[in-house]
């Protein structure tokens, strides 16, 4: 017998936000007494119970497709003309990868093409942000609901209990969390850091996240070396959840120079951990940060550096950002977002009971 809800995703991977999101939706639906099944394009090592899309018949009452890149799973949906709930996380424009990773550029291009085809099959769109929702509406999908990504925030530290490590050595630690990728523009952050170093010679920049593509990381290291800041730029790579939480708690400001964010999980994680945020106003960033961070419209090195310098040198501002951040992040607490997701799905999955 087919389950009530099929959750379609290209691949389930450890530490991947969309995979965690899918598992949490599955958990939510099962708690509501619904039968679910995860359908994947490619089985990973730990998901023996999931169904390969090649064996998928598309006969569940509701099929929820996670879409953020071109995939075989989406292609099966299109080929079978199966109506789906489209959970859209946005697709990075191919232009960012064209020269760095042409295969990935093709993949995201394919994702965009599939998005157009999926629009006709979409019963309801669920978008992480209003920014993503607008894209779906522009494609002609009328029924679009905003429900943020589900994830469990790392245990936040109340601002009053946070030690203020800044200015202990006239430096400060600037943190970035996320994939090291051309659309995230860490090169702009290193550029800004080089200027910041003129004001704060002891400052440090920590980049946490895996590189994709690898030659972008190579170029970031070259840039740091060329600008003479390589000894104070830490490429921490992919880290465990425990270490990630430590980085949030040990840093003094989170900086984001990304040009394409459909939501921005690290922004919320930083806010939840009482870390002030300085971000470039692009895509869904301002919507996610709202009035809890410094959002600037110009990310040229001097502007970004001055924004970071201001936060690192103004204790009152930092405290205000911390307080606002912790409060603002509560919007994305799992108890709240689960409820939003349930409201988005309830009438579809419960019909016919």
């Amino acid at each position: 017998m087919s389950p009530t809800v099929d959750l379609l995703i290209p691949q389930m991977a450890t530490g991947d936000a969309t995979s965690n999101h899918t598992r949490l939706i599955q958990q939510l639906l099962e708690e509501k007494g619904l039968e679910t099944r995860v359908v994947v394009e490619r089985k990973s090592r730990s998901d023996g119970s999931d169904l390969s899309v090649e064996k998928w018949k598309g006969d569940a009452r509701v099929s929820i497709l996670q879409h953020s890149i071109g995939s075989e799973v989406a292609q099966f949906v299109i080929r079978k003309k199966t109506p789906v709930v489209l959970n859209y996380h946005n697709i990075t424009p191919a232009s960012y990868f064209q020269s760095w990773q042409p295969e990935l550029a093709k993949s995201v291009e394919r994702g965009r093409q599939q998005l157009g085809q999926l629009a006709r099959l979409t019963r309801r769109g669920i978008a992480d942000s209003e920014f993503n929702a607008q894209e779906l509406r522009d494609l002609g999908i009328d029924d679009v609901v905003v429900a943020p990504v589900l994830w469990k925030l790392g245990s936040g530290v109340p601002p009053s209990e946070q030690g203020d490590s800044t200015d202990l050595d006239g430096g400060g630690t600037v943190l970035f969390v996320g994939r090291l990728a051309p659309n995230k523009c860490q090169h702009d952050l290193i550029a800004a850091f080089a200027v910041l170093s003129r004001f704060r010679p002891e400052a440090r920049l920590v980049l946490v996240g895996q590189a994709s593509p690898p030659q972008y990381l190579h170029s970031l290291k070259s840039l740091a070396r060329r600008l003479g800041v390589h000894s104070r730029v830490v490429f921490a790579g992919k880290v465990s959840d425990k270490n990630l939480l430590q980085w949030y708690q040990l840093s003094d400001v989170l900086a984001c120079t990304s040009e394409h964010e459909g939501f921005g999980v690290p922004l919320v994680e930083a806010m939840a951990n009482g870390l002030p945020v300085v971000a470039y106003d692009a895509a869904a960033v301002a919507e996610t940060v709202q009035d809890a961070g410094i959002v600037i419209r110009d990310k040229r090195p001097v502007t970004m550096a001055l924004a970071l310098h201001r936060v690192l040198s103004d204790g009152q501002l930092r405290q205000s950002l911390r307080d606002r951040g912790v409060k603002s992040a509560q919007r994305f607490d799992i108890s709240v977002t689960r409820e939003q997701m349930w409201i988005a799905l309830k009438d579809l999955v419960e019909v016919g009971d």
Partner: protein
Amino acid sequence: MSELDLKQVSAEIEADADNRRRQDREIAQLEHDIEQAWADIAESESSLHVIDEDGDFLNQAANLASLDPHVPIGSRRGLRGVKWLVRKLSYWYARFLTDQFNVFAGVLIRHLRNVETRLGRLEGAAGYLGDGTVPAGFGVLDSPPEPSAEVVSHVAGLAGSGPCLVLSGGKGAIVEAISQRGISVHGVEQDPDRVLAGLRRRLDIRAGGVLPHLVGAEDGEFGTIVLTGFVETLPLRDLVGMVNQASLKLKKTGRIVVAVADPAARARVDAELGSGLGISPVTWRHLLEQAGFDASLEPCSDSRITEIVVAQRTAPPSRP
């Protein structure tokens, strides 16, 4: 402070930046130079082929294995009909070949994925997490404390030629002491707190995993490799792997220095939790001798680390 207008703050920052650009030619020039530096690097390096150590090889293979039969193949002068026929036949033949190739590549990759899945399950059963790099025992034992002054000075004195690598680097005491001897040195540390502590002291402590860093280093890159700290909490299989890797990454006359506490001296709780994690200096000596080193134990006056292993290469390294 609650009425602080952050939009106003942002506007002030942007205005300040514009003013500085106008008034300070040096700043404006710096910004220009930085942007130019990135433009040069991006242009020259974006198409470089860099091996992704963490990448999914099969995914890359799957991407590369797809031939596109629609790629234009050009034409020659000649009769219109013949040209059309030749082009059509060439196209269908090329398409036939590419289809065959794509099917073959697809089947091959599917089989490799099955093998990968099975290996993953075996690794899982053997105690490795999904990424295969972090042993399941990690986190059971607390990280060892920072080395004492005795250990630091003793290890620094034993460091032979450079460059020197310290695994794990901790807060950088050993790195600092070796550096003060004029030897080029860096440490690797996973714990963010310790990485930052080292950086605050302007030491070369790099963030990352000890084993991946060692694997990623060039063969014959180091004159001395110091193993200490975090290595006390690794299981035997990782330590054997570490010895093999360290052996490859050492110069012909390189040296390995191991400063660890004896697991037998652990308190009862730690002994039970850390069962199978870490080995004694005597076993280290044995391992290193088996790997072709001339190893010896040196007494140390520290209360935790009572003996330090010094291993000098005597046999050329061989890839395991």
